[in-house]
C-alpha cells in the first residue's frame, strides 16, 4: 500500500492560484501599468471633452457617469490582458491538468482581477476628483460612494473574468469582449451611476435612492456571480 499524499484543500488551491497571479503581476506589472496609463489617458480625453463648458457648468450632475465610464473602459483593457500570460505559454492547460475544480479557477482569477481593478481605482478616482471636481460643492455623503465602487468592481471583475474566458480563443477577442460585456454589465453600471450620483450630490432625503440602487447592484452581483460560477465549467472545459 502506498501512502497517499493529502490533497490540498479548496482554500489552499485558491490561495495558490491567487498568489501566482499576484506574484506574476508584481514581477511584470503589465496589467497595472497598462490600466493605470489608460485611465490617465481617458482622463485627458475628458479634459478635452469638457474644455469648452461654461464656468457655471455643474460637473456634479455628470461626474458619476464620467467616473463609471472611466472605470468600465479601464477594466475592459485590463480584463483583455488578464489571460494573456495564460495563453502565451499554454499555462492555462497546465492549470487545467491539475485536479482543481473549475469554479475555483474562476474565483481566483476574478479575485486577482478585482484586486488589480481596485488598485487602479485607488489612483484613478482621486485623480478624477483633482482634475475635474476642484470647484464642485461635494455633498456631505460623498464618502459613501466607496460602497458602489466596491460593489461595481466586484461585479465587473466577476462577469468580466467570465466573459474574457469565453472570448479567450476567438477571433478579434478585444472587440468581442467589449461587445459581450457592455450589454451584460449595463444594469450594474446603471445602478452604480445612480448610487454614486446620489452620494456626490448629497441632497437631503434622497439617501433612500442610494440604498435602493445599492441593493440593485448587489442583487446583480449575486445573480451574475452565481451564473458565472455555475457555468464556468462549460467555458473552461476541454
Amino acid at each position: 500500500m502506498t501512502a497517499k499524499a493529502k490533497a490540498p484543500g479548496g482554500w489552499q488551491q485558491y490561495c495558490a492560484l491567487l498568489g501566482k497571479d499576484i506574484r506574476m503581476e508584481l514581477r511584470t506589472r503589465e496589467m497595472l501599468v497598462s490600466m493605470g496609463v489608460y485611465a490617465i489617458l481617458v482622463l485627458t480625453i475628458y479634459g478635452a471633452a469638457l474644455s469648452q463648458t461654461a464656468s457655471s457648468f455643474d460637473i456634479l450632475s455628470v461626474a458619476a457617469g464620467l467616473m463609471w465610464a472611466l472605470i468600465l473602459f479601464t477594466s475592459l483593457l485590463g480584463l483583455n490582458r488578464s489571460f494573456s500570460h495564460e495563453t502565451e505559454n499554454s499555462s492555462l492547460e497546465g492549470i487545467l491538468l491539475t485536479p482543481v475544480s473549475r469554479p475555483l479557477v474562476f474565483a481566483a482569477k476574478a479575485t486577482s482581477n478585482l484586486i488589480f481593478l481596485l488598485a487602479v481605482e485607488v489612483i484613478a478616482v482621486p485623480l478624477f476628483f483633482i482634475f475635474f471636481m476642484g470647484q464642485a460643492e461635494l455633498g456631505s455623503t460623498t464618502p459613501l460612494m466607496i460602497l458602489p465602487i466596491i460593489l461595481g468592481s466586484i461585479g465587473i471583475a466577476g462577469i468580466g473574468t467570465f466573459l474574457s474566458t469565453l472570448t479567450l480563443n476567438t477571433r478579434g477577442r478585444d472587440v468581442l469582449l467589449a461587445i459581450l460585456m457592455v450589454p451584460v454589465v449595463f444594469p450594474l453600471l446603471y445602478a452604480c451611476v445612480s448610487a454614486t450620483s446620489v452620494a456626490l450630490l448629497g441632497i437631503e432625503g434622497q439617501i433612500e435612492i442610494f440604498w435602493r440602487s445599492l441593493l440593485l447592484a448587489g442583487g446583480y452581483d449575486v445573480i451574475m456571480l452565481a451564473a458565472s460560477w455555475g457555468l464556468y465549467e462549460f467555458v473552461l472545459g476541454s
Partner: protein
Amino acid sequence: MSNALEHSYNLAQTRQKWTTIAVIALILGLVLTTFDVIWAFFRAPIVASDVVIDPPAVLEGGTVITNQLLFSQKIFYFHVPVAIVSFVLIIAAAVYAVLHLMHHSAETDLRSKTCMEVGLVFIIGTMISGDLWTRHDWGVWWVWEPRLTTYFILTLLVIAYFVLRTAIDEPERKARFSAVFAIIAAIDAPISFGITRLIPSSIHPVLERGDSGMSPDMLIPFVCGIFGMLLVAFGIFRLRLLLQEQKLEVESLKARLEELDRQ
C-alpha cells in the same frame, strides 16, 4: 445498407410531416395576424382620453392617457404580441441552451441558434413598432426609460450572441460557448418583461393580466394577435430549422463523397 436506407427514408418522412405542419402554422398564423390587424382598425374602439374619464375600466389595456384621440393606440395590437413572442423565443433559446449543456447534442445547439435568429426578427419588429408609437405619443424617438433600456440591452445581447458565434471556428466549442452566452442573455428577458411592474414610475404602460378592463372588442384581436404571431414564429422556426439541417446534411454528404473519392 438497407438499415441506413430505412433510416434516411424515415428521416425524410418526419421532415415532410414537419414541413407540412410548419406551413400550416405559418398560414394560420398569418390569417390570425391579418384578422387581428383588420379587427384592430375597423372594430376595436378608439381609445380617447377625454371620453373615457368616467368609467375608469376602459382606461386600461395598455393605453397612454393624454388629451388626444389615441388612434395611434391601435399599434398596440401589433406591438405587444410581437414583443411577447420575442420574449418567448429568447426563453426558448435559453431552454435549448441548457439542454445543449446537459446533453451536448448538435441538434439542441441548432435549435437554440434558430430560436435566437427568429427572436432577433421579432425583436426588430418590436423595436420598430415601439419606436413609431414612442415618437407619436411621447414626442421623442427614444427615452432612457426602464422598459426601453432593458429591451435595448436584450437587442444588443442577441446581436452579441451572433457576433460570438462568428468569432469561434471550432463547432463544438462554438456550440458550448454560445449556449453559455444564451443563458446569460436570457436573464435579461424576464427583467425586461417585468420591469414595468417592478418600477411603477416607468412611463411605459403596464398591461394588466387576467380580468383586466379590456373590452371583448379589444381582447379578441389582441389574443388573436398573440396566437397568430406565435404560430408565425413557430412556422418560421421550423422551416428555418429544416433548411439548416439540410444544409448540414449536404455538407456531411459532400465530405463523405470526397472521402470515397480519395479511397
